[in-house]
């Protein structure tokens, strides 16, 4: 009998199925990997287990007994603890107080510091090789590096003596030695009968630490493999599946007409990036999520300070020191989170469409002609076939795909020369996706330089003329034309030295200039 089994887990976010009947079975004392490409639902499945997401439907059995998990408190009561990339540490408190937060031992209402001190010191001593000598129970968490914070977060979960410990990308901010330390701790835990669920984008870690692995694809469980009997390449194959080769955009007659040229761009989260985008070209940004793609787009758009490097637009140097300047220079950004960065949710669709380009149509540099605004907005709605009730309805009345089209439309009205798209089809249903693809292609065909970041490898393969794969803020490699396939993108992102892709050292040095190939 498994320690815990989850079957038929369903979860929908609006029109998007995050989980579609996924299942997971865990044994006591094992390290169980959970794998899948971006957006396959592994995080959602973890969160269902930890009680932070309540599923639409699920059967969960612990020790063979059916249970329900609705709140984090339920999960904690069942001995399930989770560590996410997004930490649950209170920055302003000390390490010691964070470790016992919520479970402080007390005597007559007073915190019994002595009761927990020994335990805290023991766990900190155990983590000493990873934390370094300076970190004690009285160190404030905000003064720690991300890696140290991650270790404290792990210690916090371990101190609660869970039966099931979920580590969701817990190694992402750890250095190699810290990962080794974590592995030692995991082995001690499993030897004592704890089950560890391990999620990592680093396949070699999965190969090293996991006993078994469950693989998810588009919200479904496709396989559970025993790691000792499988290989890295087989894991990748199972993750990617037999994807029908994406239909590629017709090869365009390459012009040498360079629209955007970027050299040595360094900004928060981005190091020394070179880019060239020709007229009519769609340049893709690939790689694992959070490797600097969004940060690169924000830096190009003047939204984060550029520390070094230069940007040339049509042969002229431009200084995108602020969004206002970048907008004036003909840049447009469709940001990654349309709700919090792209839209004024409670405001009318009309206002959302007009706001960026309003300046172009004012009466006496101040007044707004509603007739003109309505005409322009109605045109945009029709051109992008946005399905709306009325222009005066708030954006909240729209589906994800149509809301995203509003963001795109507001920028098109400003007639940009460079369009930066940050994962524009995230959380968008299939048909709207196809329409957005058509819009992006049309944009490129009309001579606009397009840079597209996408967490969906199929999307990159389908749309892009060239794809740059980023890793930790640097360009790792570049794929051109027919090289852009799902499995090569996955392989490049996971740092598997496969085929003719270079190693990290080579590609950082190589100039990603497509025309030279």
């Amino acid at each position, binding site marked *: 009998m498994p320690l815990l089994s989850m079957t038929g887990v369903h979860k929908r976010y609006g029109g998007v199925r995050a989980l579609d009947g996924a299942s997971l079975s865990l044994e006591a004392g094992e390290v169980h990997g959970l794998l899948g490409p971006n957006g396959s639902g592994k995080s959602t499945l973890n969160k269902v287990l930890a009680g932070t997401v309540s599923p639409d439907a699920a059967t969960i059995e612990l020790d063979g007994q059916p249970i329900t998990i609705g709140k984090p408190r339920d999960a904690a009561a069942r001995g399930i603890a989770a560590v996410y990339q997004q930490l649950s540490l209170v920055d302003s408190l000390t390490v010691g107080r964070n470790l016992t937060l919520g479970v402080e031992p007390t005597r007559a209402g007073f915190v019994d510091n002595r009761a927990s001190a020994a335990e805290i010191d023991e766990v900190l001593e155990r983590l000493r090789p990873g934390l370094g000598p300076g970190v004690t129970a009285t160190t404030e968490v905000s003064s720690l590096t991300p890696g140290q914070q991650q270790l404290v977060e792990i210690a916090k979960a371990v101190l609660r003596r869970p039966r099931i410990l979920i580590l969701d990308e817990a190694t992402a901010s750890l250095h190699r030695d810290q990962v080794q330390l974590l592995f030692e701790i995991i082995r001690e835990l499993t030897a004592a009968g704890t089950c560890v669920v391990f999620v990592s984008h680093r396949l070699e870690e999965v190969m090293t630490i996991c006993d078994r692995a469950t693989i998810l694809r588009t919200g479904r469980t496709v396989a559970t493999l025993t790691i000792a009997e499988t290989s890295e390449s087989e894991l990748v194959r199972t993750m990617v599946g037999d994807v029908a080769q994406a239909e590629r955009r017709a090869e365009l007659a390459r012009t040498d007409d360079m629209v955007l040229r970027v050299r040595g761009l360094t900004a928060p989260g981005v190091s020394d990036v070179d880019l060239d985008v020709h007229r009519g070209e769609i340049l893709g940004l690939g790689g694992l999520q959070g490797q600097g793609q969004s940060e690169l787009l924000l830096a190009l758009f003047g939204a984060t300070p550029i520390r070094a490097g230069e940007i040339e637009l049509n042969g002229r140097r431009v200084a995108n020191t602020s*969004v*206002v300047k970048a*907008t004036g220079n003909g840049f447009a*950004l469709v940001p990654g989170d349309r709700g919090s*960065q792209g839209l004024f949710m409670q405001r009318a669709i009309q206002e959302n469409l007009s*706001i960026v380009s*309003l300046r172009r149509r*004012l009466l006496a540099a101040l007044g707004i002609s509603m007739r003109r605004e309505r005409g322009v907005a109605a045109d945009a709605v029709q051109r992008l076939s946005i399905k709306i009730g009325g222009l005066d309805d708030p954006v909240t009345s729209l589906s994800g795909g149509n809301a995203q089209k509003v963001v795109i439309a507001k920028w098109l009205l400003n007639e940009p020369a460079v369009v930066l798209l940050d994962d524009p089809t995230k959380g968008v249903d299939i048909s709207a996706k196809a329409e957005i693809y058509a819009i992006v292609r049309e944009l490129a065909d009309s001579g606009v330089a397009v840079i597209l970041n996408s967490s969906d490898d199929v999307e990159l393969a389908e749309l892009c003329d060239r794809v740059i794969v980023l890793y930790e803020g640097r360009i790792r490699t570049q794929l051109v034309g027919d090289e852009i396939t799902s499995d090569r993108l996955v392989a490049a992102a996971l740092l598997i030295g496969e085929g003719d892709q270079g190693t990290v050292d080579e590609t950082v040095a190589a100039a990603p200039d497509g025309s030279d190939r």
Partner: protein
Amino acid sequence: MTAATTQRAGMPDRLRSVVRNPVVIASIIAIALVVIGQIVSPGFGSYNQVISMLRISSFLGIIAIGQTIVILSGGDGIDLSVGKVATLGAIVGARVMDGTDANLAGGILIPLLVGAAIGLVNGLGIVYLRIPPFVMTLGMLGVVQGIILAYTGGAAAGRAAPFLTELVNTRWLLGAPGVLFVWIILIVLVTLVLRRTRPGWNLYAVGSNRTAARLSGIRVNSTVIGAYVASGVCAVLGGLLLLGYTESVFLNLADGYTLPSIAAVVIGGTLIAGGVGGYLGSAVGAIVLSVLQSLLTTLNMPASHRTIVNGVILLVLLALYGRQRKLRS
């Protein structure tokens, strides 16, 4: 699905949205209060009495213009200094005018500049020093109080110019004083600025989502600072008209207007979180509060009870309109 929605948007839906409109609700409340007043105390709803109540509302209404703009600008925007600033405006105005029309222009312009300067300091502190709006404006309240004492030496001097008094106290057209027409013009003007100019649309955008506003190429800082400057100017304008009403000035003339100005904005349906609402609602809100005060006075309710009622009304309205999201709902 959208097609279906469009079809259903027939009469019942439109009716429902009208009935749910805060401006409509507030107007109904105002009228109901007048009717109740007329029943309890005949003559309360007479034309002259209503005009008189509207005249009283105009001071609060004009001070609430700035409060509306500041709250619309979002980011926990609020101006707790409006009452004191209005008082200062009246005091400076009275001293400059000194009871003669010859000094009228200076007596209006100088206080307005003072109000703009105070608003500018508020805005700069909030935007560049990142002092939370309530702390900044609360601190400013203390400073303005100090300025008032230092400027007057503890005893206010001067009088309103006769023109100003006439504007507020003399019936001019349809039995209504000029100040009511000034207010009506301001209602139209402010609504136009908010709904039909770029600064107005930028204000709504900034209040609705600052990140998105910044990423849409809107100058967020200037917009926020502008909102506080507008608040200082409007507060002084309200204070000057109040000076016209009282003719002479006291050291706490308009101090009590801060809480009602916020209440008027909330009654008018402007979201305390910013980005949604408008001035017409605040104007009606000001009328509701003034009529309520008159009614409570008519009922011989002492000032202390009226203060309680004011606070409770604000709390009830907030509970209806202004609830925040739950943690991880």
